[in-house]
C-alpha cells in the first residue's frame, strides 16, 4: 500500500505493521478547514491517536531572499509574513537594524509605533476569533469579527495611508505623523468595539452550546507550555505570565501602564477569553498613548540632516518623511543584533548577522506560529475527532507565518 520509490526522501511518517485498525485521514490543503497545510490524522474509532502536521505549502523563502537584497528592502519583504498584523512584524526588524546601525528613534516616533502596533493587535485578535467561530460552524461570529476588523483597518489607513501593508517603521523613526482628528475617530471606534465585545461574549463565548465544545478541551499544562516554547495567548492561558513587550525594550511600553491577562485553566475557552481581555487592554494602551504623546520630530536627526534643505523643510512641515538617498545603499556595520517583539500571535524573534556590506549576511526570523506547530502533535491525541477543529481554531495558527 505504501511503496515509496527510493530516490526521494519521504516527508511523512510511514505506516508500521499492525496499524490496520487505525484509520488514516488526510486533512489536506484541499479542505475547507485546514488552512494552507496538511494534517495526517490517525484515528482509532473516534479517538485521535496521532496527528502529524505537514507544513511548508506556502514556503516563500524569505530568509534567502533577504540575503540578496539591501537592508532597507527587507522591511516590505518581511512585512508580508503576517499581513494581518504587519507592523508588529516589522517593528522588531527595524529595532534590530537600529541596534546594528546605532541609531536612536526620537520619543514621538516610539509612541507612534506603539499606537500602530496596538491597532494591529486588535485586528489580529479579531481575525483569530473569526476563524475560531467558523471552525465550529458559527457563521455569525465569523461575519461579525471580520466586519468589525474593517473599523480598525480604516483607522490604520488614516494613520499610514495603506490598509494592510503599512511599512510604517523605518530605521530612525516612522514615516508619517499623526493626522488631525485622529483622537475623535479613535474614541468612536473604541466605544463601538466595547459594545461589540459584549455582543461577542453573549453570542459566542457565553453561549452554553459553545462553552460545551470549548471547556475542558485541549488542555495545555503549564510545565509543557514552558518546555515546548509556546508563545502568545496560548501561553498566557496556561498560567505563564510572559509577554515580549515586558521582556524586550522597544516602543514606549516602559512608560505606559498595562496588564498582561493570564488564566490558569489552559483549555480552549481560556485561550479565547485571554484574547478578548487583550483587546480591552490594547484599547486602554491606545488611549494612554494619545494622551501622553510627546511633540517633536518623528525621524532621527542623524538621517534627517542627510536630506537637502528644501526637502528637510517639507518633511518638518507636512509630517511625511522622505527617505534620504543613502538608505538605498545603507552599509550595515559588521556584527550581530537580536530583537524580539510581541505580535498578536505571540513573540517574534530576529537575529541579523552582518559582515559590513549593504546586504545582511544572514537574517534569521522565528515566527510565533512556527513555535506553536508542536501543539498540533501534542494536544489532539486522546480527544475525539470533532474536537480537532475546535483546538485548531482556538490556537490561532497562521500558516503563511509559520512557513515564511
Amino acid at each position: 500500500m505504501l511503496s515509496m520509490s527510493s530516490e526521494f526522501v519521504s516527508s511523512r511518517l510511514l505506516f508500521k505493521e499492525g496499524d490496520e485498525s487505525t484509520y488514516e485521514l488526510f486533512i489536506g490543503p484541499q479542505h475547507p478547514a485546514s488552512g494552507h497545510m496538511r494534517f495526517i490524522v490517525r484515528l482509532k474509532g473516534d479517538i485521535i491517536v496521532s496527528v502529524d502536521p505537514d507544513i511548508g505549502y506556502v514556503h516563500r523563502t524569505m530568509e534567502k531572499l533577504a540575503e540578496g537584497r539591501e537592508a532597507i528592502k527587507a522591511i516590505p519583504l518581511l512585512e508580508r509574513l503576517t499581513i494581518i498584523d504587519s507592523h508588529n512584524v516589522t517593528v522588531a526588524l527595524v529595532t534590530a537594524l537600529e541596534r546594528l546601525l546605532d541609531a536612536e528613534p526620537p520619543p514621538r516616533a516610539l509612541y507612534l509605533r506603539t499606537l500602530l502596533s496596538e491597532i494591529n493587535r486588535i485586528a489580529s485578535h479579531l481575525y483569530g476569533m473569526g476563524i475560531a467561530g467558523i471552525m465550529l460552524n458559527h457563521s455569525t461570529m465569523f461575519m461579525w469579527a471580520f466586519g468589525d476588523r474593517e473599523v480598525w483597518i480604516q483607522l490604520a489607513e488614516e494613520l499610514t495611508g495603506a490598509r494592510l501593508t503599512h511599512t510604517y517603521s523605518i530605521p530612525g523613526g516612522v514615516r508619517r505623523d499623526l493626522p488631525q482628528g485622529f483622537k475623535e475617530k479613535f474614541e468612536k471606534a473604541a466605544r463601538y468595539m466595547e459594545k461589540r465585545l459584549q455582543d461577542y461574549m453573549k453570542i459566542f463565548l457565553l453561549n452554553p452550546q459553545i462553552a460545551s465544545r470549548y471547556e475542558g478541551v485541549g488542555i495545555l499544562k503549564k510545565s509543557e507550555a514552558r518546555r515546548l516554547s509556546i508563545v502568545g495567548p496560548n501561553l498566557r492561558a496556561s498560567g505563564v505570565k510572559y509577554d515580549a513587550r515586558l521582556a524586550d525594550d522597544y516602543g514606549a511600553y516602559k512608560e505606559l501602564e498595562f496588564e498582561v491577562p493570564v488564566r490558569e485553566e489552559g483549555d480552549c475557552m481560556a485561550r479565547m477569553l485571554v484574547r478578548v481581555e487583550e483587546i480591552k487592554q490594547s484599547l486602554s494602551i491606545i488611549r494612554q498613548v494619545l494622551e501622553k504623546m510627546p511633540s517633536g520630530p518623528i525621524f532621527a536627526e542623524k538621517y534627517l540632516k542627510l536630506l537637502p534643505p528644501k526637502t528637510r523643510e517639507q518633511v518638518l512641515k507636512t509630517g511625511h518623511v522622505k527617505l534620504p538617498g543613502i538608505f538605498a545603499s545603507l552599509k550595515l556595520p559588521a556584527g550581530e543584533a537580536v530583537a524580539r517583539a510581541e505580535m498578536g500571535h505571540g513573540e517574534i524573534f530576529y537575529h541579523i548577522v552582518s559582515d559590513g556590506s549593504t546586504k545582511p549576511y544572514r537574517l534569521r526570523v522565528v515566527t510565533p506560529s512556527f513555535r506553536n506547530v508542536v501543539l498540533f502533535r501534542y494536544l489532539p491525541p486522546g480527544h475525539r475527532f470533532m474536537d480537532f477543529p475546535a483546538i485548531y481554531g482556538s490556537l490561532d495558527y497562521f500558516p503563511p507565518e509559520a512557513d515564511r
Partner: protein
Amino acid sequence: MDIVGFIVKLFLSPQVFAPIVFPGLLTALVVLLIIIWAERKIAARIQMRVGPLYVTRHLGGVLQMLADGTRYMFQEFIVPETADRIPFIVAPILALTLAILPFAFIPSAPGFSPISSPLTLPAVLAVISAIPISVLLMGWASNNKFSIQGAVREAFMSLGYEVPLFISAISMSILYGTMSLEEMVTKQFIPGLILNPIAAFTFLVSMIMSAGKLPFDIVEGEQEIVAGPYVEYTGIIFGIGMGLAYLKLYALSLIYTIIFLSGWEPLPKLLYDIYPGIAGIFLFVKAFLLMLFIVFLRSVYGRYRLDQALKIGWRVYFVLSIVSLILSLGLRVILNV
C-alpha cells in the same frame, strides 16, 4: 367532453391533488426555493450583510435558488471510477422518492386526505425514518473515507432522534385516541401544544435533529468531513442531496402543525365551498412559519459534537418523551377526552 372531464376529475380528486399540487410535490419545490433563500437572507441580516441579491434585484434576490438549480442541471454528472456504480446512482434517487412519499399521507382539509386510513401517523413516520438508509447507501457507494465517516454519523444520529420522535408522536395519539392525522385535528378543542407541552418540545428538537439543522448539522459537517455522504456527487444529484434535508423538514413541520398546532383550524368556509383542496391555507402558513423559526436558529448556534448530540438524544429527550407519554396517559384518564 368525456376524456377531458375525466382527466379534470382525476386531477382534482384528493388522491392526485394533495400529494402532487398542494401541499405535495409542487408546493414542496416552491417551499424549497423560498426557504433556502429565506435562510440565507435572515442569516445575512443578522450578520450585518445583505445576502443573495444578484438574481432578481428588485424582489430581493428571491429566484437565487432557481438560478442555482439551473446551473446544477447543466453540470456534468461524474461517477468516480472507484465508486460502486449502481448504488451510487440509485441511492440519491431512492432518497428523493422516500422524501416525497410522506405527502401521500398528509391531509390538507377535512375529508380531503389522499389515503383515508385509520393509521396514517405511523405510516408517515415509518416512511420518514427510512430516509437515513438511503443516505448510508450514498456514503458507502462513494468509496471515500470522508463520506464513510459521514454515513456512520448519519447512522448514529438517526438512532438518536428516532426514538424520541416516535414516542412523542405516539403519546399524542394516545391523548387523542386516534392514529389518523385527519381525526387528530378534529379532536383538538385546544391545541395540542397546550395539552402536552413536553411532547411538543421533544418533537420539535427531534425534528431539528432529523433535518440536520444547526446545532445538529453533524452529518454534513463542513469543517471536518466536507459535506459528508454527499461529497462525491456533482450536478443535479448534489442539488437533490442538499435539498433532501429541507424536504424532510417540510414534511415533519406539516405533521407538527397537524398534531400540535390544530392543523387547518380555523377553516375558511368560503374556500372550502369552492374546492376543498385549497382550504388548507392556514395549515401551510403555520408550517411555513415554524420552518422559518427553525432556520433562524442557524445564526445563533454552532455545531454540537457527535457524542454530545447522542448523549442529549438518549439521556435528555428520551426521558422527556417517556414523561410526556405518562402525562398523556394521565390526561386521558382525568379528562376522559
